[in-house]
């Protein structure tokens, strides 16, 4: 019996041990297989990303790796509307005029220019070339602008050319595009007639929509212009050499570019297309990209890493815009006054948003706008604002009586879906509930949907913002003109319109700035908007890269003047 039981135990043992061996073997196979797969995958990944240089700065190849916010839908300058396209275009194209690394206007394709009351003349340089070696001529501009205004092109930014004679009529389809008062007198001289005096035309001419386009090349692309790397002709410091849709872009130095003050790098790789700041922070930490912006919660990390943090104002102003359409509660001035008096933008910025690079906004005009001699806001200080709850409640009561309401219905507060907009929306919701007893419903929408709702007037208050298109107070000043399509709240006041007309066409800078001062005052007194904040960015740059710019007007990130310097500091 004893013996038998021992044998049975040994058989059991040998059974378990052999099973264990088998199991161990399987585990080993599985692990080996896994290693093999990982290796194969990494090789495959390495192959597909052959032009991804690896590393933020590659000194040998004189190349850098950057991120793009999103993939440009297309790179046709005349039709581009998004920030991402603007970034790419600013590196591969050049207009008549461009900006230097200190935001001053400098000659681009035009050597010199003259702006008169009734028109302008640009003299083009001889050595400006397209990337196929042919010269850039005045005809290329004439063709490009006529095409932008052609209703068939349906360019969203066509309105920016309306100061040229007949432009608006052509864009509306009332006149043929040949009637546009832009003439290439010779290959080197471009003559323009104005619809109305436009002293700031030089600033407009630096904008993307004014970039040139060569007719023969455009025709040869058969309507696919700008859709791919070889479907475009470039005249900027870089060219798009490769464009793998949905993944990467490779910009290389343009050998035909005329100036040696721009384009010091041989290659710029846009290896990552992402808007995720956390992903970008990690990429930057790992040394995979040369720059990234930081949001408030990341600042402690940045301080811990001992990075040199930089800041820039991006030029835009964010505000609560009211719906001034008739029949809306927000059409009532006392209602708007109540909301204005019950808030303080500095509390929003300092205690809620906590962004070090933001500035509490006090006016429709941001602090950087130039006045006659000094900064506009120094010459024309913003109306003084003091939070005053007692007066706010008085105004609300007056509004309630005027509107003949027992109680205010819920207010529809349209906002974007970004973290900052949602945070601000929640703050205002509670603020107005606590201070004024108003119920606010937040309608958070993606950008396009928000724009659609703003256009159709489906809101009471909208959290909106405006980024300047050019370096002049008018880019903000004409925002609430009754005819401006971007006036989504449909604010309509004769007084405002009158001042805007002066601002548009007055040549005496003093009188013109006076008009802007009046617009600023009216925007406050009539509570067209409630300014919230002026946006800025905190950002970090790889210390080996110099000359990188984040801009307030033009491309948000600008590598045109960037170069690699490894000497340290």
């Amino acid at each position, binding site marked *: 019996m004893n013996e038998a039981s021992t044998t049975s135990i040994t058989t059991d043992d040998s059974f378990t041990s052999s099973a264990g061996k088998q199991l161990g073997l399987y585990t080993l196979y599985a692990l080996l297989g896994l290693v093999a797969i990982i290796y194969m995958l990494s090789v495959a990944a390495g192959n597909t990303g052959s032009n991804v240089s690896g590393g933020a700065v590659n000194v040998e190849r004189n190349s850098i790796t950057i991120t793009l916010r999103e993939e440009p839908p297309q790179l046709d300058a005349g039709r581009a509307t998004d920030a991402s396209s603007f970034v790419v275009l600013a590196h591969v194209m050049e207009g008549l005029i461009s900006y230097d*690394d*200190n935001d001053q206007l400098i000659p681009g394709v035009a050597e010199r220019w003259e702006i008169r009351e009734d028109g302008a003349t640009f003299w083009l340089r001889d050595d400006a070339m397209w990337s196929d070696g042919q010269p850039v001529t005045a005809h290329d501009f004439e063709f490009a602008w006529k095409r932008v205004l052609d209703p068939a092109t349906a360019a969203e930014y066509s309105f920016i050319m309306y100061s040229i004679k007949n432009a608006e009529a052509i864009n509306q389809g009332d006149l043929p595009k040949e009637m546009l008062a832009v003439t290439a007198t010779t290959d080197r001289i471009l003559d323009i007639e104005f619809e109305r005096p436009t002293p700031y035309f030089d600033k407009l001419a630096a904008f993307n929509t004014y970039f040139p386009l060569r007719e023969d090349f455009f025709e040869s692309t058969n309507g696919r212009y700008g859709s791919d790397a070889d479907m475009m002709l470039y005249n900027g410091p870089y060219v798009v050499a490769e464009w793998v849709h949905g993944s990467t872009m490779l910009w290389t130095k343009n050998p035909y570019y005329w100036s040696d003050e721009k384009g010091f790098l041989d290659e710029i790789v846009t290896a990552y297309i992402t808007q995720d700041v956390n992903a970008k922070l990690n990429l930057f930490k790992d040394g995979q990209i040369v720059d990234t912006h930081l949001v*408030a*919660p990341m*600042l*402690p*990390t*940045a*301080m*811990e890493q*001992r*990075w*040199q*943090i*930089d*800041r820039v104002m991006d030029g835009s102003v964010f505000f609560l815009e009211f719906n001034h359409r008739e029949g809306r509660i927000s059409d009532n001035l006392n209602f708007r006054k109540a909301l204005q008096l019950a808030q303080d933008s*500095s*509390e929003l*910025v*300092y*205690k*809620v948003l*906590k962004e*070090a*690079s933001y500035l509490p906004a006090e006016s429709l005009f941001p602090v950087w706008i130039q006045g006659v001699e000094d900064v506009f806001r120094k010459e024309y200080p913003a109306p003084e604002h003091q939070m005053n709850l007692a007066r706010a409640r008085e105004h609300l009561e007056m509004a309630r009586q005027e509107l003949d309401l027992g109680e205010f219905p*819920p207010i*529809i*507060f*349209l906002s974007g*879906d970004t*973290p900052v907009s*949602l*945070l601000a*929306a*929640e*703050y205002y*919701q*509670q*603020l107005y*509930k*606590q201070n004024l007893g108003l119920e*606010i*419903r*937040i*309608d*958070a*929408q993606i950008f396009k949907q928000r724009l659609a709702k703003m256009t159709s007037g489906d809101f009471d208050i909208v959290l909106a913002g405006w980024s300047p298109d050019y370096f002049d107070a008018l880019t903000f000043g004409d925002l609430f003109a009754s005819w401006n399509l971007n006036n989504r709240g449909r604010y309509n006041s004769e007084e405002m319109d009158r001042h805007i007309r002066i601002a548009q066409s007055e040549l005496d800078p003093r009188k013109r700035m006076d008009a802007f001062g009046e617009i600023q005052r009216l925007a406050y007194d009539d509570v067209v908007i409630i300014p919230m904040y002026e946006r800025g960015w*905190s950002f970090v740059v790889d210390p080996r890269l110099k000359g990188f710019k984040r801009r307030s007007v033009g491309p948000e990130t600008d590598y045109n003047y960037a170069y690699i310097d490894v000497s340290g500091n």
Partner: protein
Amino acid sequence: MTDIASSEFAPLQEQKEVHAISRPSLSYWQDAWIRLKSNRRALVSLYIVIGLLLFTLAGPWIWRTDPAFQDLDQVSQPPGTNRGALVVEDYQPWFGDQFLAGEDLRLAEPGTTQAVRLQWDPLDAAGGHRVYRNIFPLGPERAYGIPLAELLDPETDYFEDRLDLKPGRYYYSVVAIGPRGELLDNFETIEVSVQQVTTVIEAVERGLVDDATELQVGDQIDLIWHPLGTDYLGRDLLARLMAGARVSLFIGIGAPFLFVLFGVVYGSMAGFIGGRTDQMMMRFADFVVALPFLLFMILFKIAFGIGPGESGVFPMLVALVVLMWPATARLVRGQILQIREQGYISASQLLGAKTSYLILRHMIPNTLGVVLVTVTFAIPSAIFTEAFLSFIGMGVAPPTPSWGSMSNEGIKTMLTTPHELIFPAMFISLTVLAFNLLGDGLRDALDARMRNTE
């Protein structure tokens, strides 16, 4: 055949009664309860679930803080922060003090959470100044910290910092910049310790005192107590967790209960009737499985006329119930089909059992284990679905919190203020775990086949 004489028979001796092995007769539920009680894990989970229900329903009666109230003095405070604050004068704008005594970078007045006021003498060759703030002392690498402002006018020699000041130590630096905004080499730096302060008006607004006359500048006062700290808008986390539990548990328990109930009825009908009806019913279930949940969620939201900024919790419940039942139905049908062919069913039928008896006595108890497993998995998945939908804006509308939306907000500041994520995440995990363990215990307790196998 052997003859057996009657004399060979003897009357049986009277015997002692044999030791009887018996126990009191127990009903099915009594038996289940006894077995559940002996399962410690399940019992603890049961207490946790009861505790959660109390927390949700009775909590707001005890902790009477408005979950939407924003205490902007205490934004993103972890629990246990010192609440002491000094009462100071109301904030007045400050535009520097040229005659302030002292040299270099200096404070115009002691640093408070209201403002830190810095004054300096213009640095040499400065085309302007940049003011930085750091939470670490300046090291040899000269990383100055967060740039607070760029003062392009070299004559501006003061700065007031009001950005998100917390009690503690800060290191400010003023650096000279060149004409194009580039950093120059000369800088000055100062260490500032910041004290928590409040004002009389704020104290009244926040409900710390009833009457403004009770307080005077210079008094020491305790700010509002937040046992679990506050979130990114200074809202009380405990109050928000209670309010959030209502939504999360409503969806998390309500939806699974309803769709499992429907699934059981549907599945047992299909399984019991069988044949063509079964085929038809199950093909319909397959059809429902194929319907995209998110799309229907949106459709329901529109169909119910839920406008922007209104809570989408009810359509969420409907969408969950309408679309999630087929899994349970399939499972139950399979079980019923299996049980239908069991010997004891045939035996009962032979003994004349009615259909209702068969279903109630044999079929349902035998499927209960499977159903309970489904429920235990459905509850966490429903809680997660709610969290996900709240995140993409289809669920609760702000300011109503739910655990899911709170986690999604907390994750953004996970590294700096982890408590905003940890508490809601802990509640989700705890709830999910408790329901899982309880379900596990219930399955063991209710499984008819595990009866009498102690």
